């Protein structure tokens, strides 16, 4: 099989044909931080954490949607990228009410992990402290918009994997909010199949199993990949 050869951080590496820069980096053990990306669903390039420098490109490119090309020279970890990533994370933390110590996902949160890994030790921007609702009308799950980072993983997994399209975004800009059906209480959303994929996909404590107590919510993101892989490879229908 033909492979793509490129340089990541000065190292010559090879990647599967058609692989994105992110996949190429992962295949070669290079970590690029992500938040909106989730294996098994489409990529939207929205969180901007995975931006990398590509020689010859005037703009930074999101590794999750940029295809690795022959002889490409990629830098994933320059000072400038680190600075931008820290600031992106600061913006996220300032945007809503991420009170880690009392969050159900404390200790199992991708946002928290990204902050730690990227050395974001404080937020220079004023916290916005919006007054956002919590919806636990669903029998089994809950959504706390205070902890939502609008990554839209729930929207995509529900649409692409489950096929229900219960979730979508409403509003725009900083007023954006994830909704179920016609912005109804989740418990009243007819289209929801209660499959729980959105719960597993959520990177933070925004979507959780009802009854979760502080620090208790662990997401099983591998379950989504399990389904999508099996489907792609037709594992059950040889």
């Amino acid at each position, binding site marked *: 099989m033909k492979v793509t050869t490129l340089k990541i951080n000065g190292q010559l590496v090879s990647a599967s044909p058609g692989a994105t820069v992110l996949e190429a980096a992962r295949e070669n053990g290079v970590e690029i931080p992500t938040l909106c990306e989730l294996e098994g669903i489409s990529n939207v390039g929205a969180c901007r954490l995975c931006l990398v420098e590509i020689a010859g490109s005037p703009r930074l490119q999101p590794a999750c949607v940029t295809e690795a090309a022959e002889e490409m020279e990629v830098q994933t970890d320059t000072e400038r990228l680190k600075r931008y990533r820290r600031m992106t994370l600061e913006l996220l*933390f300032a945007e809503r*009410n991420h*009170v*880690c*110590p*009392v969050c159900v996902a404390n200790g199992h949160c991708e946002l928290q992990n990204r902050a730690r890994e990227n050395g974001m*030790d*404080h*937020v*220079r921007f*004023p*916290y916005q*402290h*919006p*007054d*956002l609702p919590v919806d636990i009308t669903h029998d089994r799950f809950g959504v706390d918009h205070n902890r939502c980072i609008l990554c839209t993983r729930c929207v995509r997994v529900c649409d692409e994997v489950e096929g229900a399209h219960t979730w979508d975004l409403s509003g725009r800009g900083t007023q954006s909010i994830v909704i179920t059906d016609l912005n109804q209480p989740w418990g009243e959303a007819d289209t929801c199949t209660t499959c729980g994929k959105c719960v597993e996909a959520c990177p933070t404590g925004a979507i959780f199993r009802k009854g979760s107590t502080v620090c208790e919510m662990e997401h099983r993101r591998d379950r989504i990949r399990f389904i999508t892989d099996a489907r792609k490879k037709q594992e059950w229908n040889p």
Partner: protein
Amino acid sequence: MSTQDPAAAPAARRPRIATVWLAGCSGCHMSFLDLDEWLFELSKLADVVYSPVADVKEYPENVDAVLVEGAVANVDNLELIRKVRARTGAVIAFGDCAITGNVTALRNRFVTPEELLRHAYVEEADFQPQVPGDRPLVPELLPKVLPVHQVVKVDAFLHGCPPPPHEIRSLLETLLGTPGEGAAAKMGKEENGEPKT
């Protein structure tokens, strides 16, 4: 703890550290006390010149480093932290309330503190409901609870709710790594305060 003459020669002077408690639950200080027997080591390395667990009432001058627990929530906190900043070499935001506002800042989603005060002291009171308002005895709440670094410059951040004792210890050891020189010199930070020796 012995009292050292602050005017002593720099080389001979023991590092002076302090801990301060703003709007926080005291959990960070408890975690500090969870250093347990290492506190004996600490008392060999430095003088704790000011702390809620000690009796000195006025925050002293020429403090080398201070651990600040809690967020800035009222005018008393504000006054104290400014004084602390002016008199200290290295200000360390100690725990999540100091760094992010944390649980203390949960009230910020309300437009004004008045809403909360009314709830607590008027709606939930059985006898002479009123919002405590004797100033300055009862200090005025700031409109928003603020992390320490949004009020004064902060030199280092120690995370956790509370920060685990071993991290407090490791930070203190870093600060006191060269006893005698003073923590401020070690931190390489001088801000707003008197020149450090």
